[in-house]
């Protein structure tokens, strides 16, 4: 292939900086895009991590005045928003990009250009969100941005960066998901039926479908908020007939599937790593697939468990409580299948497998307190962040600390050791 500089490049000579940069900025190769997602996620992880450290510093001592109240609210908002949308999501996409085409035997994804576009939209969305720091207008209404605190009357200018940043990166996420759906449906190697796909591909597929249905409500909610704030609309203006709870419905119809979007790829990684290093096939492949589909489906039925305290009434509270508890069943099936993959195996405790295996009890601890939280029907005095703020910081950290590192290490390990069985 002819490149502008190839005439002057000798065999084996290293390329200079600018061509390399141009390559990375314009690449449509899924493997390079995976690395870009990884790097982008890591950069924002530094931001979110520093925000977390500052929050913890302020909370170390009673009556401590290290961080003023306004800045504190900005920190908690930015930490949550950054970690969910600009760390965990890109890591998910990094793994999907790196692994899925290889697992199904495709040369690349279905729409490579759209794939690259999706990355750049995510990255620029993250920059947009953080622009507020430069203009002393940082979003401060929490990562859930409830109205009217985030609205035109009570919300500061910083909320605009939140709205724009998430809208832009959300678009990138959506097109990325469509890409993977088409790739997985259309580009599997001959002979690879759906029920022969590796588990990580399955979970990536279901994740992509969740994104397809969950992100539009967020898009809509952000549009409504943007119009209220910038163009004088009245969606959430009570004096003009608007309803403040409406935002919460839109946000959580997105927000609950979002946490399944974040965890299902990690589940896929665990299935791959555990089965590889136990030397055994995954226990109960079809039930694993079925359980994952059920989790995805039920994930759309439970959003109002983030709204138990809003006063929806007994019927709604009861229904959403029961639906929340039901998700424990397919999730339990998955956990037992992992344990019984290990059972009777010959387990090697490589670095990858240490992460994956320790994920199991960690996730069970996190998951059971979801069961406790589902009992919110009595407007339980459970700490707000458990029910409302989406993934518990602890539960979520547990899942994501263990899944992706295990997966990354597996990718490396797979290359260097002979395949078992």
């Amino acid at each position: 292939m002819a490149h502008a500089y190839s005439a002057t490049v000798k065999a084996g000579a290293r390329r200079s900086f600018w061509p390399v940069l141009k390559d990375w900025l314009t690449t449509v190769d899924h493997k390079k895009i995976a690395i870009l997602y990884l790097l982008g996620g890591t950069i924002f992880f530094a931001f979110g991590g520093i925000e977390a450290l500052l929050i913890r510093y302020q909370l170390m001592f009673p009556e401590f005045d290290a961080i003023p109240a306004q800045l504190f609210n900005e920190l908690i908002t930015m930490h949550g928003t950054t970690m969910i949308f600009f760390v965990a999501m890109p890591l998910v996409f990094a793994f999907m990009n790196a692994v899925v085409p290889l697992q199904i035997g495709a040369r690349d994804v279905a729409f490579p250009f759209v794939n690259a576009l999706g990355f750049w939209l995510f990255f620029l969305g993250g920059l947009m969100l953080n622009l507020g720091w430069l203009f002393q207008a940082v979003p401060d209404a929490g990562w859930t941005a409830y109205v009217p605190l985030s609205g035109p009357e009570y919300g500061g200018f910083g909320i605009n960066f939140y709205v724009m940043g998430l809208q832009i990166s959300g678009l990138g996420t959506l097109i990325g998901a469509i890409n993977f759906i088409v790739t997985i449906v259309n580009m599997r190697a001959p002979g690879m039926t759906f029920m022969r796909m590796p588990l990580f591909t399955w979970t990536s597929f279901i994740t992509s479908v969740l994104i397809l249905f969950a992100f539009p409500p967020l898009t809509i909610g952000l549009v409504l908020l943007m119009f209220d704030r910038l163009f004088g609309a009245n969606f959430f203006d009570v004096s003009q007939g608007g309803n403040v709870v409406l935002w919460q419905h839109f946000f959580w119809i997105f927000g609950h599937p979002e946490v399944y979007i974040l965890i299902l790829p990690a589940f896929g990684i665990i299935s791959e790593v555990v089965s590889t290093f136990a030397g055994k096939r995954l226990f109960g492949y079809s039930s694993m697939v079925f359980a994952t589909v059920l989790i995805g489906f039920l994930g759309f039925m439970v959003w109002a468990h983030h709204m138990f305290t809003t006063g929806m009434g007994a019927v709604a509270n009861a229904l959403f409580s029961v639906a929340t508890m039901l998700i424990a069943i397919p999730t339990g099936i998955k956990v037992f299948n992992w344990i019984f993959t290990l059972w009777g195996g010959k387990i090697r405790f490589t670095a990858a497998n240490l992460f994956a295996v320790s994920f199991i009890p960690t996730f069970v601890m996190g998951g059971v307190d979801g069961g406790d939280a589902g009992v919110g029907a009595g407007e339980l005095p459970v700490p707000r962040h458990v029910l409302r703020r989406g993934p518990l910081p602890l539960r979520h950290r547990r899942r994501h600390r263990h899944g992706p590192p295990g997966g990354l290490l597996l990718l490396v390990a797979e290359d260097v050791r002979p395949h078992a069985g």
Partner: protein
Amino acid sequence: MKRWYKAGRTALILAAAAMLLAGCGGALDPQGDRAKDQYFLIMLSFGIMVLVMLVVFTLFFTAVIRYRRRKGDTGDPKQVAGNHRLEIIWTVIPFMLILLLASFTVVFAFKHDEVIAAEDAVNVQVVGHQFWWEFNYTDHGIRTAQDLVLPADTWVNVELSSADVIHSFWIPQLTGKTDTNPGLTKTVAFKTGDPGVYLGKCAELCGPGHALMDFKVVVKSQDEFNAWLAGMKEPAPAPSTPAAAAGQEVFGNYCISCHAVESDKMSLGPNLKGFADRQTVGGFRENNDKWLREWIINPQEVKPGATMPAFGDMLSEEELDHLIEYIRTLK
């Protein structure tokens, strides 16, 4: 030291530490019927979850320890990839556990959504503001703020709404959280317990002052409550000292535009009838002259985001002294 000595000692320490849970207070020290119901649900779900964890952890640790690859063993294990009976067991048993938890949950969901129509129930209209709580006893025509005074062992219906952003009404020992939404009202019932002072908190991010938007629930015996009601309806006593009288004049010049001192009057800011008997200044500071002074001089220093203007530059030291002495007469 033998290993089991160490393990036993650790277990004992953990068991002792668990006893300390009783000192946790808040939702784990429920008073009143509603909170006790909710405590039961917490314990039931917690018990079920501990059971689940014990089973799963036993299986997990057995698998991980027993089936380690032994040194030098390079062969492949037997490829068992399914067991119908097991799969049915671990679907059915969790389903039954959920049935148990769900039945209690549903029953309580309906029970706790009832408003209590009892004759002696106290009805209070609660309005959340940035960053204080307004309490109106609609049956008695009394308006007050920050201290929710209630009789012991009585059902209370609170009609919740907000004047600005979403707040959330929470008294950990008495009732779960319910949001106060602008433009919507929601009535919730709870029963008070023994006399005492209970902590109330705002449980929904509402701005810089959110963390400090506390209120107190002062539960008195029925007689004391009736006396309080009667006292609130009486007009404020005339100031008895010249300093207090001067303070009343200062109040009239600076404060009356936002604060009423008669309990039947509406006002922009908290109604100050009975302020001298309240538990706190600004909702969370001890009600003494030092904090009152700091509050009037610069409310935002005490509670960031407070909407009351700062009067430090507008009042001389003497005026401030007089004002405080007047405020101390507001019983």
